[in-house]
């Protein structure tokens, strides 16, 4: 249970400084508007803000009332209004309406807009167009790194995925570069850099540029983190689309972990109340089960419960003095453990109930068949039935995408029939969703000439690249063949199992998917770290359509301690899943590494599908 780290595993840097930094900067910005003010906060910023500050801190800095930025207008009587928002057009319109209504009523107030993590010119343009540029003052709160856990930093930008991978908008690349720059200022330099993907490469280049522009403050410092690895989400959609079966991933899939905490409803808390619970390394019970395959969690919780019982039982034979000691010294800890234990048992129960209802076993079987590439017909009709029965639209979409990516696109007949049935079951407007998925390369139709030889495809690639002016579909460059089957073979992603895969004693990262599949993203990272380069992985890189987009950058001067060389920062552009985090934590324990995760947002299959959906629920 809960494998300990190797004794020589390096210590993690202290990331709590990032929280302090963000909070101090916010306070500074609030002080720029002295006096009482009302604060309007965008819904998406509330949870991240909750993690670094609380109401009393805001009150100390003369924030009077708090409002949520939403569609309906708010009635505030304050003389000063402060808006804390993401740089989005609709927020600008909201503010403009408010300011213009004041103007019409002949009312003058002070307005301040704080953009987080940065402002966009498009937003300023809207302020200008609405005639309120100059009436409002703008500032930036560069809060782009939220430590969700000791080894997990999130930028809390779920929209990164859609903006970049669907729309091809590079607006967040600067934000990523700035975040990396901040990290290297605080914890750098990073002697070894690797990356794969277009976005990874661009972010890396911009980051380097930032470093060059600032005088090299980090030069001469001893590196704390030996390696940094940047990876685009579209290198591996498959992993993100799979159902998660490690505990933390399963909790995320079932209850949605939001900003590191989860709302356990009455069905979990076995009371009439919901409870918001922080899920991180500080929760001792959770910390021991988070990376476990779900089937192991029961055993662990039972053991824990028995131990707890035994400890409580000790009080039976106690005299008064011993009892006093017990109450003053142990009871609090026991009670805490008791509370956590009953919560996680409740969560397990609730997960079991839900998963049983949706025929989870059958679902997993289908997913495994898709990953391994057998019984394609059977899987297709399973998906079809899913659609016909109007089972969750997101789930059906996810399975179709998984089928498409593992098979290099659906055969035209299946594509058409599944699409038709999907539109009939879930609404015709999903036509737009299908168009999005095709553009992002998540759900495609095999073109008639898709079984080309390598030479042919090379030629056709050259043609499309050269004829840049006349590509009818600009997104052809974004939506490429996935080659999953070939990559899987090359990287041995489907472990050969002789006998049962013992999930209690995992032997490789495949345990996060019940031993059926090693997450591609994690395998790539493992291979590159082993080689300290992309050497020998040319074929894989080519299959990933990344011949020019895989890079390595090592500094020659070797001041890095052996300890820091085993500390690796992995940057997921477009989101990473808890399964990937668990897999890499496992790899770390095996090899004596420690991984630190930086992600644009924690994601899962449902979030990816929702990001592509045009129809908002």
């Amino acid at each position, binding site marked *: 249970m809960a494998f300990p780290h190797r004794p020589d595993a390096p210590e993690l840097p202290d990331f709590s400084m990032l929280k302090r930094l963000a909070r101090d*900067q916010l306070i*500074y910005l609030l002080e720029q508007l002295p006096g009482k003010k009302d604060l309007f906060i965008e819904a998406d910023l509330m949870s991240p803000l*909750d*993690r670094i500050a*609380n*109401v*009393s801190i805001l*009150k100390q800095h003369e924030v009077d*009332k*708090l*409002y*949520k930025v939403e569609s309906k207008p708010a*009635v505030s009587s304050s003389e000063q209004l402060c808006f804390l928002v993401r740089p989005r057009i609709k927020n600008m319109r909201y503010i403009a309406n408010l300011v213009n209504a004041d103007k019409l009523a002949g009312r003058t107030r002070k307005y301040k807009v704080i953009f987080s993590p940065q402002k966009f*010119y498009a937003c300023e343009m809207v302020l200008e167009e609405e005639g309120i540029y100059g009436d409002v003052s703008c500032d*930036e709160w560069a809060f782009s790194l939220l430590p969700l856990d000791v080894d997990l930093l999130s930028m809390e930008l779920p929209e990164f995925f859609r*903006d970049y991978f669907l*729309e091809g*908008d*590079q*607006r*967040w*690349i*600067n934000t990523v570069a700035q975040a990396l*720059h901040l990290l290297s*200022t605080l914890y750098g330099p990073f002697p070894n850099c690797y990356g794969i993907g277009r976005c990874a490469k*661009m972010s890396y280049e*911009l980051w380097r540029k930032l470093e060059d522009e*600032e005088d090299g*403050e980090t030069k001469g410092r001893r590196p704390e983190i030996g390696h940094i690895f940047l990876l685009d989400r579209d290198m591996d959609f498959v992993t993100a689309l799979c159902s998660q079966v490690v505990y933390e991933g399963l909790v995320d899939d079932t209850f949605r972990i939001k900003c590191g905490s989860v709302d356990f409803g009455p069905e979990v808390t076995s009371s009439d109340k*919901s*409870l*918001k619970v922080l899920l991180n390394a500080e929760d001792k019970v959770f910390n021991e089960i988070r990376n476990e395959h779900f*089937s192991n969690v*029961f*055993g662990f919780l*039972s053991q824990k*419960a028995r131990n*707890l019982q035994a400890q*409580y039982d000790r009080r039976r034979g106690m005299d008064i003095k011993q009892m006093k000691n017990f109450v003053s010294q142990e009871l609090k800890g*026991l009670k*805490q453990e008791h*509370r956590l*234990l*009953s919560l996680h*048992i409740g969560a397990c129960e609730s997960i*079991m109930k839900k998963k049983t209802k949706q025929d989870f*076993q059958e679902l997993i079987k289908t997913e495994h068949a898709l990953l391994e590439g057998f019984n394609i017909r059977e899987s297709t009709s399973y998906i079809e039935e899913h659609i*016909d029965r*109007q089972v969750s639209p997101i789930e059906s979409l996810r399975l179709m995408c998984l089928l498409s990516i593992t098979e290099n696109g659906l055969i035209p007949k299946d594509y058409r029939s599944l699409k*038709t049935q999907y*539109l*009939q*079951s879930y*609404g*015709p*407007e999903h036509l737009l969703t299908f168009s999005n998925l095709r553009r992002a390369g998540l759900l495609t139709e095999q073109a008639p000439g898709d079984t080309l030889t390598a030479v042919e495809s090379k030629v056709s690639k050259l043609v499309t690249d050269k004829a840049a002016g006349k*590509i009818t579909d*600009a997104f052809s460059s974004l939506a490429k063949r996935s080659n999953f089957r070939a990559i899987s073979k090359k990287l041995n992603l489907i472990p050969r199992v002789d006998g049962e895969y013992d*999930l209690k004693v995992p032997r490789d990262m495949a345990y996060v998917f019940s031993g059926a599949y090693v997450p591609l993203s994690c395998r790539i990272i493992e291979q590159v770290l082993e080689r300290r380069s992309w050497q020998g992985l040319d074929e894989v890189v080519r299959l990933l359509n990344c011949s020019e987009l895989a890079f390595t950058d090592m500094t020659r001067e070797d001041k890095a301690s052996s300890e820091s060389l085993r500390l690796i920062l992995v940057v997921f552009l477009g989101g990473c899943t808890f399964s990937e985090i668990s897999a890499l934590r496992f790899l770390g324990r095996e090899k004596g590494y420690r991984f630190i995760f930086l992600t644009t947002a924690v994601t899962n299959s449902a979030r990816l599908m929702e990001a592509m959906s*045009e129809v908002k629920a």
Partner: protein
Amino acid sequence: MNRTKGDEEEYWNSSKFKAFTFDDEDDELSQLKESKRAVNSLRDFVDDDDDDDLERVSWGGEPVGSISWSIKETAGTSVSNHEGREQLKSRNSFSSYAPLPKPTSTYSLSSFFRGRTRPGSFQSLSDALSDTPAKSYAPELGRPKGEYRDYSNDWSPSDTVRRLRKGKVCSLERFRSLQDKLQLLEEAVSMHDGNVITAVLIFLKRTLSKEILFRELEVRQVALRHLIHFLKEIGDQKLLLDLFRFLDRTEELALSHYREHLNIQDPEKRKEFLKTCIGLPFSAEDSAHIQDHYTLLERQIIIEANDRHLEAAGQTEMFRKHPRKASILNMPLVTTLFYSCFYHYTEAEGTFSSPVNLKKTFKIPDKQYVLTALAARAKLRAWHDVDALFTTKNWLGYTKKRAPIGFHRVVEILHKNSAPVQSSVFYGSENDKSEVPLPTDITGVCQSGGRCGHKVELSHQVQVP
């Protein structure tokens, strides 16, 4: 835990859980059950004063004192301001949610930032935060970027782009020749910063004619994508459509136009709008979907008007017994079919609301039709209809059970609607010349509702058309 012991036994032992198996599951489950009991039995020992280490949580589930909680409070009390504030104050006093350490310094933070002239030197702040003496902070932090304005007009494209990247206000007016403008754009693209690319595009859009702008972007795909996304975001539909037209991206043009229907709430107007979409250059396949969308909404409007009237009149038994839960407008086709099977099952094919009419108009496959009709009729407990769905006569006049879907699904649906075993599809018919000899324990399957292990046997014997 208000579940009775009996329930619990059934819950853990029911065949349902077998569907989700891991190794040694019986063992694990009983362990879990045991541990749950153990933990529950401990509850009375600790419950009384449990609160001290719990987060205070409001009814909405937010920890009291958290920001999300506080916002809800404001929303709820914004009418009676004074009272609300008092409440807020008093509740806030016991806020215990993730208390953060107070800043180590007692100075106002702004004093550290004030008077700092040289960017890059941040000595004062790092000194002040005594617990991090060795680190120096990122120089960009804490500097409100709007303060630094520079109206100098002599920046080269690369200088300009660098300044833009740093969020500084910077005039682009000196880039007047097309060549200058394009150079600026290319410089922006080479920096990869989408925000800067968009900033330059906003300038180009303002200062170039549409045709020239489009022409130049056609060969600059990265910039083109940014312009398209920008136009989508600000909602400049007209220019977006012009752009697609210019680029000859007919399908995107059509989809983009079609997307607008989502913003039209009024069903009649939406219908009219969909009508304008029918002739657009969609792919052949999508054209059919658009046509169907229009026809579906057209039907729904008719059915809705009619049924609302019937329901209001209160004369129809069906609507009195089963009042409609929601309007049928804008629902998917399958939902509409379900609705029609529920309320209009026996209607003649000629009426728009009859299931058969829907089936024909939209070419709904047998499988989908049977599945939906089954669900609807079973919900109404109209077991005869259910029976009839699967009964066909062969040429000798014998009746046969046939189903285009697996019988295990049929059983499952029936079970969910608690079909009496006697009248379920297998037993209801008197004509037991049925060619489906049923395994004797089908009853058990029906009752447990579990995934039946007889799928294979049944599908061997049932002729699936």
